[in-house]
């Protein structure tokens, strides 16, 4: 149970926070209140109800595939490069997807068509690095196993 002083403190803090948020909020909502409110609440809902379930389901599927093959412990070798690649896409999708190609070229004098290729190459490097690490670890494990196995005398 929460002690009373803490509860009082919490209430005061929350009241102060809402007052400040309200002061900034009326300014935030001044122009296009519906659009901004949709973005504000929508960002939280999209994250919690779409993004998290999506990547959690993908991850669960991945673990299941490895589990079925009896190699649950190897999940990370795919999870890490896949998640890093997905993260880069999540952050840079406007450039990678070419959504702002024209504006980017007009504004900066730079070509935006390299981003997709670079993202794909980074993804390839991430998976290749993971594969290499896996092979190295597998080899050292096999070597250790052969060394530790007692010589078989027939």
């Amino acid at each position, binding site marked *: 149970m929460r002690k009373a002083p803490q509860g009082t403190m919490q209430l005061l803090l929350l009241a102060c*926070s809402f007052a400040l948020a309200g002061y900034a909020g009326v300014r935030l909502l001044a122009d296009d209140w519906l659009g901004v409110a949709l973005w504000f609440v929508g*960002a939280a809902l999209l994250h919690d109800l779409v993004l998290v379930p999506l990547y959690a389901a993908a991850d669960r599927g991945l673990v299941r595939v490895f589990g079925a093959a009896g190699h649950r412990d190897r999940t990370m070798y795919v999870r890490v490069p896949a998640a890093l690649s997905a993260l880069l896409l999540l952050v840079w999708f406007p450039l990678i997807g070419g959504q702002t190609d024209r504006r980017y070229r007009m504004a900066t004098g730079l070509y935006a068509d390299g981003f997709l290729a670079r993202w794909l190459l980074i993804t390839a490097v991430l998976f290749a690095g993971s594969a290499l690490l896996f092979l190295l670890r597998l080899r050292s494990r096999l070597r250790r196993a052969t060394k530790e196995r007692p010589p078989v005398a027939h």
Partner: protein
Amino acid sequence: MRDHTPRPPTPRLPTSRLPTSPGFWRSPLRGPWFTSVLGLVLLVGITVLFVTGLLSYAAYNPGLAPVNDKTPDKGLLGFYLFAWPTHPHWLYRLTQGVHVTFGITLIPVLLAKLWSVVPKLFALPPARSAAHALERISLLLLVGGALFEFVTGVLNVQLDYLFPGSFYPLHFYGAWVFFAAFVTHAALKTPAAVRNVRRMRGERDGRERQEAAGELVAPRPDPPTVSRRGALWFVGGASLLLWGTTAGRSFDGPLRRTALLAPHGGADPGSGPNGFQINKTAAYAGIAATETSEDAWRLVLTGRTGTVRLSRAELLRLPLHSAALPIACVEGWSTSDQWWRGVRLRDLAALVGHDEEPPDVLVESLQRHGAFRRAALRANQVADPRSLLALLVNGEDLSPDHGYPARIVVPAAPGVLNTKWVARMTFGDL
């Protein structure tokens, strides 16, 4: 299911199938230690983002003139504003580079933190008490605010203006709404987070015991595929990857080529003296060559003693000075120092009667549209001997994309206040 007899109209799923049941959440990673570590990283990180963001807002000198102010109804939220200094000349390059690059670096930490507490979102009942209901509303502001700020920022640096309105008011007022919730959350949770991390540091047994009882811990966890420490390394690695593919865009040369996915990363737009990064090209700004020709273009200076019109050739006959200054954009990229050469702003002020104390100046561009086709500079910026109306850069005439026939360069000022294609300068108190 073994039972195939007809069921009541609303069949009840086993409780663990619903996210409202603690048993639904199976990851063995969730627990107070993991959440606390991420929370403390964000406590420091978001504080840095907020402070550098407020500095960037101040760097525009919004209190100086309406043309600089994209948030005229800011009220008390601009309480801290101060005259933006010109020393050190890399000040804005540093603060805004940190704001954007560090913000991008924090994305994995934010996502991991939100993941680690997601079961709480679905916890039932939605509110145990009035205080609890208020706390949950505050959390909506916290999570919505954090995502709103990160999403608008990330879209803006990619020139993808999907958000509903102008970036400046959205990101600024949004930051205050978010920060109000953030401070409260930090005040309520930091003591426990520090306790959690301290108590569990080092002693493995202790951690296992604490985690077994702590909130957020899955009651029926799946067997682990990675340790909590490993998961933290994973988050850190993701941050490192984003940082490594972004940070280089604050430098020219080979370092910029390491910024593989960030805008203004990779190669420079050109080679030679004018080859460095461009904010907005002449074509984008709608500047025609006929307007900037030797015959057509005149700089119009207005001040206490009236108006003076100068051609570019006449400007070149005035005393010229050099300054090594970067271009630093609100989007977080910057160039290394470039060698600009031109007429000092304070010398131009003197030409129209402001001999002693240089006043503020309103600078107008040939640009017909764009939020910053007109910008005001404060007296301290005009007075700095390195503040120039630049005519040359790195030993050559400015290129059209860098503002030919003449552009402003001011130490430590945001890129957009370094007006290009200058047409008119009006000196005097604004």
